[in-house]
C-alpha cells in the first residue's frame, strides 16, 4: 500500500547517509538487471524520478519495456535498520523539456563529465517495508511454525 506516511518514509530514507539503493528491472526475455546507487528523487506528486546516464544500458531498455507494457520495476532502499521496496511502473521518459533540462544541468553541476540520457518518472504502486527486524518480528507473530524451537529454549 502507498500512503503519505510511506512516501515520507521513503523521502527521509533517501536523505540518510549512508543510504544504499538498487533499481531492478526486467527485460522482455525475463532477464533481470540491477543497478546500484541509482540517482533517485521523490517528486511533490509522489512519483519517483530516476536519472539514467546511459542510453545504451540494459536498465534503460528495460524501463522502456516496462513503460510500454505496464510492467513493474522495484527500487530497494536501505539505511541503518530500515529498508523499503518501492514497486512501481515507469510512466514518462523525459528526453526533452523542462524536467530533463533541469536534471541535465543539475547533474552537470555535480559532475562536469555527466551526460544524462533520460529522466524516468515512475508511478509508485506500493511501498513495502522489508526492514529485517520488522520482517522477523512479523514472521514470529504470524508464522510461528517457522521459528526454530532452540530459539524458544534459549529465550526462556
Amino acid at each position, binding site marked *: 500500500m502507498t500512503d503519505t506516511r510511506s512516501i515520507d518514509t521513503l523521502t527521509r530514507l533517501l536523505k540518510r547517509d549512508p543510504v544504499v539503493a538498487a533499481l531492478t528491472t526486467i527485460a*522482455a526475455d525475463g532477464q533481470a538487471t540491477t543497478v546500484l546507487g541509482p540517482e533517485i528523487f521523490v*517528486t511533490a*506528486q509522489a*512519483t519517483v524520478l530516476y536519472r539514467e546516464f546511459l542510453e*545504451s544500458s*540494459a536498465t534503460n*531498455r528495460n524501463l*522502456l*519495456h516496462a*513503460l*510500454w*507494457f505496464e510492467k513493474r520495476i522495484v527500487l530497494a532502499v536501505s539505511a541503518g535498520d530500515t529498508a523499503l521496496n518501492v514497486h512501481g511502473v515507469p*510512466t*514518462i*521518459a*523525459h*528526453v*526533452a*523539456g*523542462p*524536467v*530533463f*533540462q533541469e536534471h*541535465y*544541468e543539475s547533474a*552537470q553541476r555535480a559532475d562536469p563529465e555527466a551526460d*544524462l540520457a*533520460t529522466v524516468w*518518472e515512475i*508511478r509508485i504502486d506500493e511501498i513495502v517495508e522489508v526492514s529485517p527486524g520488522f520482517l522477523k518480528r512479523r514472521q514470529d507473530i504470524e508464522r510461528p511454525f517457522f521459528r526454530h524451537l532452540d530459539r524458544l529454549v534459549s529465550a526462556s
Partner: protein
Amino acid sequence: MSQTVQTLTEFIRNQSQSSELDAAAERHPNIPRLIITKIDAQRRGVHYSERALGAFEPAIHQARALALFGSRDGEVTGKPEALLLRDGTSVLADPTPLDRSPYVVDVVDGRLVLTDAGKIIEEVTYWPKPKYYGKRTTSGVLMEHVVTARPQRFNVFPSSYCHFWTNDKGCQYCDIVNHQKQTLKELKAPARLRGHDIAEVIREGLKETGRFTTICLTAGSDTRGPNAFDTEVGFYEEILDALSELFGGRPFPSQLISSAFDLNQLERLAKRGLTSWTTDLEVLNPRLFAWICPGKEEWVGYARWRQRLIDGVSLFGRGRVASGIVGGVELAKPHGYATEEEALKRTLAEADELGRQGVSVISTVWNPRPGSKFKDQKVPSLDYFIRLAQGLHEVRVRHQLNVDYDDYRRCGNHPDTDLSRVLPDFGNGRTQEVTHD
C-alpha cells in the same frame, strides 16, 4: 506533462468506445500501443483545436517553419512542429483538414491530449523550442532558417531544390520543389546556405546544454558536376569543413542523407569526419522505382543505387548506412503491388537482403501531399504500417544493426526505429577499441 498519469491512463483504458486503434492494438499485443498511436497519427494526420492552439506558446514551443516537404493543409508555418508522447516518442504528424478524418489535438481538463472521435487517446506535449530560434546570424538570417531542430538533432538543409524536377522527373510522392517555392515566398528563407552561417548557428545552439547529440545534413539532389552529384558533394564538403573547424577537428556524430554518391565521392566526405550515410531507394522494387522515381532511375538506376548503399558499408561500417523508404508508396495505383500481403512480403525480403549486407532500411509513414503528383492516392491500412515497422525492426535484430543516427530522438519520424530503441549494443567491430578500467 501531467504528473497524474496514473489517473489519465486508467481513464483512457476505461473508456468504453472502441476504435480502429484499439482493434489494432489487440491484433498486435507485442507492439507498444504508444507506437501504434504514433503510426496512426502520422498516417491520418492531426488537427489542432482552438484550445490546443491556445495552449501552444510560441516562446517555448517549436512551431513549423522551414522544412523540405509540405503538409496536408498546405500551410507553411504557424502550427506546432510536432508532439511528444510520454515515452519520448515524437509524432511528426501533418496538420490535416478536418474533412480528412485526422486525430484531433485538444485540451481536456487542462491537459493537452490526442483525441479520436471525442475519445482521449494519449496525453501529449509540444516539442520544446530550442533557445537559438528567433536569433539572427551575423549575416542577418533567422537562425531557424539556417538550421532547424529535432528533439536532439540539428537539421541542416543546404538547398531545398531537387534537380530531378528540372525535366519534371521528380519522385511522384514528393512536393519538395512546390514546397520550396512556397517557403521562399512566405518565409523569405535563403535558397542556399553557406558553411559559415551553419557553423555559427550550431555554435549558438550548443550553448543550450543537453539539447543536441547529432547533426543531419540533407537537401534535394543536385545532379551537376563533372561526375553526377559532384556539385552536391561540394556543398557538403564545405559544410563539413566548417563544422570540423567548430569542433576543433574532433569527430562529431553526423548523418548525411544524400543522392547515391559513388565510393570516391563518399571518401571525400568520410575523411572530413562524416560518421553515417543514408541514401534513399524510396521503394524496394526496381520496376516501381523506375515509375515512382524517374529522375533517380534516369541518373543512377535501382541496381546501381542499391550497390552504392552496400559499397557505403565498406566505408562507414555496418549499422551506419541506411536507405529510407516511403512506407506504403509501394501500393500506389495503378502500378503498385495489388495487395498489402504481397507488398509486405516483397519489401521485407529486399530489406532483409540489404540488412544482411549491413544496410538498414528505415521507413516513413507515407501521407499524400497536396503539392505532389500522388496527391489523390490512398494510404494503406494501419495494420500494414504496423507490420512494416515490426518487420524492419526484426531485420535489424536478425542482422545486428543499430540505427542510433536515425532513432526516436535523433529523428523521430520512423516507427520502425522507434521499436529499435530496445536493441542492445551490437558493436559491429568497433568494441575492441574500448579499454577496461
